[in-house]
Structure formats: structure tokens, C-alpha cells
């Protein structure tokens, strides 16, 4: 620990062993964040492979063949052959079920819940607040190792066949069957929940206690507000996932019978338990992305964010309202009276969300917009997230939801908000903060190419699914009627374009790490504290404790640190736009 304070946090130590140990035993939030980044990216790619398998299987509807000898109907899949397990034939449908379950479970629990908070949040929250670290660095390390431990359970589950219940683990299917290794996957999610809880505890305490003196609540960057709101949800909602999965494991092992109708239990009770966590969980997924969007738009439009307090309060409002709406996932399982209650409450959550979207758009108005990769992603985010958000109310409308429940409309909706929202924002943030994290610039041209391909690929994949859904194509079905074939083919082609976009990004980032241009301290002209630090930052973030002299978005009155006034003129509506941030 001695003597490395003025080196970059990435600098290796004297020997290989010491370098490795410096990462294994690190208490540095930046290193923990980078480890999370690597792990969540790997999880994203793995879950993406399953998604490609799912889409490949859906290329053609399959045909049923009646077996002459046995007079039984056999469903024959195109790409996922059957095998036997425990003496029983695993049909291609089982294999397909596993593919979408693993796609969902790995994406949700191993990627999207931890990615923005635990990777980007870990690295940048303390720096943005002017702190040297998070409140509880050892808890941070524990959170990381808990994630690894949970990930190992997930790998074990994968190796022993995965699960095929859907990532929602609905009973009684999940409590009575065991294709593959359901218990292991459930335990993995349980452990990963604790990782999320520890991160949440850390961030709440950090925001409360480690702000630089003079930084009040309304001087914080909006990313910090978003992370704070997310952390509140993580602390309050995730334990309920813990108890839900614990009860499921007890149901499977001890046969306690609380979800089994034959023993007097209630399967819908499981759904209440599960969605009480999982609905706030989707706000854990999107709120940090919204925080990133605020940062991206403000910096790359070089304009003060419109309605700072509105965005800040709306983050807290979304966190609060998110606890009130969970049963809108259960409209087809609930009584009419409560359906009405939850439907009404669900419409409520659109309000703070819309406030944010309007504020972002207003920020862009008459601004000096730099069309670099992060900004392209910010604009993609606005477009796609708005579509996703607008397709929420049809699902919240009871009568319409009876028709749309468990169709591709729902699939398209949540992919638009989770992928079109969070993943786009995540990629934008990754490009935005890449120079700061790793001290290297990425290739801007190919970055934009990747962004455009991802945008096109994403929309080709998912937009058509709205129509599939309204026409009645159910989700989680491996086979479908002929009429949907062209829809599915378009969607599958989109998934390939999407894959190409991600591949380009991966290559761009890899290239940047080995041969990228050294990054300046403030390539984009940002005003928040991370742009005062070195690229990459030193071990304790700052040489001198930062002093707060201006707000986080005062572009019209403050020259950004380490930048010249020529590159970043003070007038909010600069005449000549900047071609590149430099």
C-alpha cells in the first residue's frame, strides 16, 4: 500500500505477484469497478450468445410430425437438438426453454443489475463527490467477491444444464420440476442479491457522508442522484428477492408446500413475492442509465442541464413509486379490484419519467451538440427509451393487457427500456468515461460506426416485435404459426446486425487499450470532479482535495478544467460546433 499514491490506479507493482495481489486484495473502488466491468461485460456477451441462439431457433416455425409407430406428436426443432437427461428425453423445447431462461437470468442478475451501479458507479461516484473512496471499502470488496461467488453458482448451474423455468422462476413449475439445475441457479441469484445489497448500502452511506465540504445535495452531479436513488431501491427491494428465492429453495428441498396447491399452498403468492422485488429491480436497471444520460447530454451539448431539481427529485420519485406497482406483472392472476389499483398506480410512474425526458430534450435545445459516440448513444437512448416508455401504458391498461400479456409486445417493451435504455446509456457512458478510466482515447470513427450499427440492429430486432405481440405471438414459445415467419426472420437478422455492432465496439476498445492515443484529462469539457482528476486517476483520486467553486453544469460561466476557452467557449450557444472533444 505504500508509495503508490501518485501513480495511476492501473499501474502494475514491482513483481507480477504483487500486481495480482494488488487487485485481489484491493480496497480501491476504481479497481473494484474495473473488475466488475470486465465480469459484467463477459456476462453480457454470454447472455448475448444465448439470445442469438434463441433468435436462431426462431428463424423458422417448426413443424410437428406425428410419429407413425407410436402415434405421438413430436415437435422437431431446427437448431437445438434433443438429448436425454436422467433417462428422459429432453425435447428441443426444453433446450429452447433453457436458452431463454439463461439469457434472461444471466442478463438480469449478472449483467444489468450490477453493470452501471457496480462498475461505472463504483469508479465514478466517489470521484464525482470529491471523495477518496466509497464509505465502506472492505464492504465493496466483499460485494465484489459475493458477485464472483454467485457467478460461480451460475456457472455450476450452466454446467449442469441450466434452468428452464424462465428467469422469473414461477411456481409450481420451478418448485416441482428440475430440468438441468434449477436450485443452483436460484441460489446464484440469491447470492448475487447480497452483492447488490452491499453495493446499495455502500452508496447510500457514501452520498450521505463523503461529499466534499461545501457540496450540498443540489451541487451533486445528477449521476450521483441517480446512483443514490438506485441504492435506496437496492437496499429496500433486494432482501425480498432473497426471501423469495430462499422460500423457493425450501419449497424444493424441504417441500414446505407454501407454493404447492396440492399441499394447501398458493402459487400466486410466489408471484407477489417475486415481483415485489423484480419491479423495483427494473428501476435499479434504468435509473443509473438515466443518470448517465443526464451527464452525457449536459457535457456533449455543453449546456446546463434543464431542470436539475426536477430531474433529481424525479429520480427519488421513481424509486418511491416503483414499490407501488409490482402487481402489474400479474394482471392475469389477480382479482379485479386489485388489478384496478395497480393499473392506476402504474400510470403514476410515467410522470417522473416523462419529466426527465422533457428536461433532456430541453437541454439539447439551442445547444452546441457534438455528435461523437457518447452523444450518439445519448440520442439513441432518448429515442429508444421513449418508445419503451410509451409502450408501458398500453400494458398498464388492464383490458389491453389481458390481450398483450405474455406476448412479444411485452418482450419488445422491456427490451426497449432495458436495452434501448440502459444498455445504450451504459455504452454511451463507457465511451464517455473510457478516456478517464483507462487514459486512452478510442477510435471515434469506428465508435460511431458501432453506435449506428447497434442502433439500427436493435430497432430492426425489436420494433417488429411490437407488431408480433399485438397479433398474438406468445413469448417463450419455440414454435409458432406460419404467419409470424417473416416477422421473426426480420428480428433475427436484426440480432445479427446488433452483434456486429457490439463486435466493432469490442474491437475498438481492445485497440484503444493497446494502441490508443493518450487521453487528456478533460477531452469532452466536462465540469464535474472526475474531469479534474488525472486520466487515469491516481490511487486516491486527487492530488489535492477538490474544492467546489461551481455547479456541475455551469457551462455558460466556467471554463472546464484542463481545457482552453477556445475549445469550449463560454457562450451556451456557441456558433461553431466542435467536431471532436479534445
Amino acid at each position, binding site marked *: 500500500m505504500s508509495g503508490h499514491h501518485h501513480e495511476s490506479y492501473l499501474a502494475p507493482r514491482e513483481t507480477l505477484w504483487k500486481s495480482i495481489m494488488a487487485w485481489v486484495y484491493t480496497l480501491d473502488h476504481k479497481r473494484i469497478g474495473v473488475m466488475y466491468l470486465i465480469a459484467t461485460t463477459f456476462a453480457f456477451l454470454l447472455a448475448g450468445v444465448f439470445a442469438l441462439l434463441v433468435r436462431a431457433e426462431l428463424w423458422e416455425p417448426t413443424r410437428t410430425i406425428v410419429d407413425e409407430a407410436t402415434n405421438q406428436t413430436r415437435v422437431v426443432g431446427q437448431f437445438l437438438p434433443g438429448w436425454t437427461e436422467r433417462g428422459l428425453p429432453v425435447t428441443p423445447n426444453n433446450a429452447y426453454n433453457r436458452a431463454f431462461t439463461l439469457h434472461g437470468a444471466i442478463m438480469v442478475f449478472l449483467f444489468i443489475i450490477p453493470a452501471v451501479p457496480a462498475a461505472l458507479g463504483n469508479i465514478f461516484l466517489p470521484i464525482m463527490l470529491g471523495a477518496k473512496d466509497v464509505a465502506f471499502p472492505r464492504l465493496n470488496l466483499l460485494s465484489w467477491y459475493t458477485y464472483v461467488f454467485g457467478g460461480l453458482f451460475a456457472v455450476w448451474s450452466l454446467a449442469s444444464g441450466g434452468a428452464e423455468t424462465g428467469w422469473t422462476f414461477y411456481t409450481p413449475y420451478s418448485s416441482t420440476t428440475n430440468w438441468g439445475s434449477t436450485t443452483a441457479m436460484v441460489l446464484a441469484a440469491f447470492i448475487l442479491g447480497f452483492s447488490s445489497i452491499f453495493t446499495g448500502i455502500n452508496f447510500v452511506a457514501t452520498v450521505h457522508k463523503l461529499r466534499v465540504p461545501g457540496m450540498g445535495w443540489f451541487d451533486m452531479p445528477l449521476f450521483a442522484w441517480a446512483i443514490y436513488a438506485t441504492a435506496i431501491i437496492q437496499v429496500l427491494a433486494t432482501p425480498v428477492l432473497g426471501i423469495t428465492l430462499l422460500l423457493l429453495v425450501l419449497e424444493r428441498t424441504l417441500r414446505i*408446500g*407454501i407454493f404447492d396447491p396440492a399441499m394447501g399452498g398458493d402459487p400466486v403468492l410466489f408471484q407477489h413475492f417475486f415481483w415485489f422485488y423484480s419491479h423495483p429491480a427494473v428501476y435499479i436497471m434504468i435509473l443509473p442509465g438515466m443518470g448517465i444520460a443526464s451527464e452525457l447530454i449536459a457535457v456533449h451539448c455543453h449546456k446546463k442541464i434543464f431542470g436539475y431539481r426536477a430531474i433529481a427529485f424525479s429520480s427519488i420519485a421513481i424509486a418511491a413509486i416503483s414499490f407501488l406497482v409490482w402487481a402489474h406483472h400479474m394482471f392475469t392472476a389477480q382479482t379485479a379490484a386489485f388489478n384496478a389499483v395497480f393499473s392506476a398506480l402504474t400510470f403514476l410512474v410515467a410522470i417522473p419519467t416523462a419529466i426527465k425526458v422533457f428536461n433532456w430534450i430541453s437541454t439539447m435545445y439551442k445547444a452546441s451538440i457534438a455528435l461523437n459516440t457518447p452523444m450518439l448513444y445519448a440520442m439513441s437512448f432518448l429515442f429508444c427509451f421513449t418508445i419503451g416508455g410509451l409502450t408501458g401504458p398500453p400494458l398498464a391498461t388492464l383490458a389491453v393487457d389481458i390481450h398483450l400479456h405474455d406476448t412479444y409486445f411485452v418482450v419488445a417493451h422491456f427490451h426497449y427500456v432495458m436495452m434501448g435504455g440502459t444498455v445504450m446509456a451504459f455504452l454511451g457512458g463507457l465511451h464517455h468515461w473510457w478516456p478517464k478510466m483507462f487514459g486512452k482515447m478510442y477510435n471515434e470513427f469506428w465508435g460511431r460506426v458501432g453506435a449506428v450499427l447497434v442502433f439500427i440492429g436493435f430497432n430492426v430486432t425489436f420494433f417488429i416485435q411490437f407488431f408480433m405481440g399485438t397479433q398474438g405471438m406468445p413469448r417463450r414459445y419455440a414454435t409458432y404459426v406460419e404467419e409470424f415467419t417473416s416477422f421473426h426472420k426480420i428480428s433475427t437478422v436484426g440480432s445479427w446486425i446488433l452483434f456486429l455492432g457490439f463486435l466493432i465496439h469490442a474491437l475498438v476498445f481492445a485497440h484503444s487499450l493497446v494502441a490508443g492515443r493518450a487521453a487528456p484529462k478533460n477531452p469532452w469539457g466536462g465540469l464535474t470532479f472526475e474531469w479534474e482528476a488525472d486520466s487515469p486517476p491516481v490511487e486516491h483520486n486527487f492530488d489535492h482535495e477538490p474544492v467546489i467553486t461551481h455547479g456541475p453544469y455551469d457551462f455558460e460561466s466556467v471554463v472546464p478544467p484542463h481545457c482552453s476557452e477556445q475549445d469550449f467557449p463560454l457562450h451556451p450557444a456557441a456558433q461553431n460546433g466542435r467536431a471532436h472533444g479534445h
Partner: protein
Amino acid sequence: MSTAAARKPMIDMDLPPHARHVPATHWRNAKDEAEAAKLGMWLFLATEILLFAGFFCAYSAFRLYYPGNWHAASSYYLSWKIGFANTVVLLASSFTIVMAIRGAQTNRQWMIQLNLFLTQLCAAFFLVVKLVWEYWPKIQEGKLPGGFFTYAHSQGPHDHIFLSIYWIATATHGLHVFVGMIVIGWAMWMAARRHYGPKHYTSLENIGLYWHIVDIIWIFLFPLLYLV
């Protein structure tokens, strides 16, 4: 920034360990560190409360479904006297752990150690009574949860659900008591090394907070399972 050699932090090695505490480097002062630690602990306790809320929700759900059966099963399978004794003992242990903290606040090392020991004693009493007088007889008679329920003289059709809830709620609570005992054991060791004093007893306070939550959960479990 001051140069490295100019100032070393002054630690007087003649002072006992609890007076020598220096906050971690990312904290501006010890007060912030202590308050943050307490806030962090409360956030963790919030998660514990929500975890047990699941048990209470399941209890309520099945109470709602099978009301008559539930009340009868409660008095049929459980002895309120044992539960009552355990409740009083746990309340006493809450009191003694507060006194242990008082010992740290008033720099009476004997008080810390005595009260931690008494807390352990109460916790051990709780677990022994539970295991020996509640769990073991039930295991022998087949009064087990759900699918393993083999007791021949059930008094209602949904006894196994009642026992499921009873077993998982009290076993999880008992596990928390056990973990608490381990942590208090660690605190006793730290207290023996003079780790706690008026200027530094944050971790003891946090252990106390955990212990009180365990007590509060039992305050709710006792009437719901044993009395009504």
C-alpha cells in the same frame, strides 16, 4: 499538500488500544466515520427486516386462508410457556448488551465483558431451550414441515403448512441468534484486548443494533406463532 516527511500522525503508544483509533484514510474525521458506520448498519438492518417480512407475509397469507385451523394448530403444537420464557430471556439479553455499550461509554472494561458474557448466556439459553425442548421433540414425533410431516394425530388438514411456517421462521431466526453469538464472541475477544472505550465503540454499537433487531423479530414472532 504537505510533504511526506513533515508531519507524522501522533500516536501515543502508552494509551490503550481504544484510545489510539485513527479513522481510515478516506474519512475526514472520526465522527463522520462513526456516523457512517452506524448508518450503514441501519441500512443492513433494513434488509434484515425486509427479509423477515417475507416470513410474516407468508404467515399472514396462510392465516388468511385457514383461520380456524391456524389458531388450533398454534396451541396444539406449540407451548406458549417455552416461548414466553425465551422472549423474556431475549429481552434481558437486549438489556445486557445495552449495558455492555454503556461500559464502553464509561470506560469500565469489566462492565463490557460481564455484560457481553451475560448476553451470550441468554442467547445460549434461548438456543438450548429451542433445540432441546422445541425442535428435538418435534423431530421425534414427526411434526415436521410440509412434505415431511408424519405426525399421526394432526388436528386439522393444514397443520403441515402451519408447521412449515413455524419451522422456517424460527429456524431462520435461530440461525440469526447463532450468528449473533459468534459475533458477540468476537466482541468479547476484542473487549479483552481493550479494543472498546469511550472514544471508540462503534463496532460494539453495531453489534448491539444487530442483536436488538434479532430481539425485535422475536417480539413479533412470539405472539403470532405461540399465542394467537
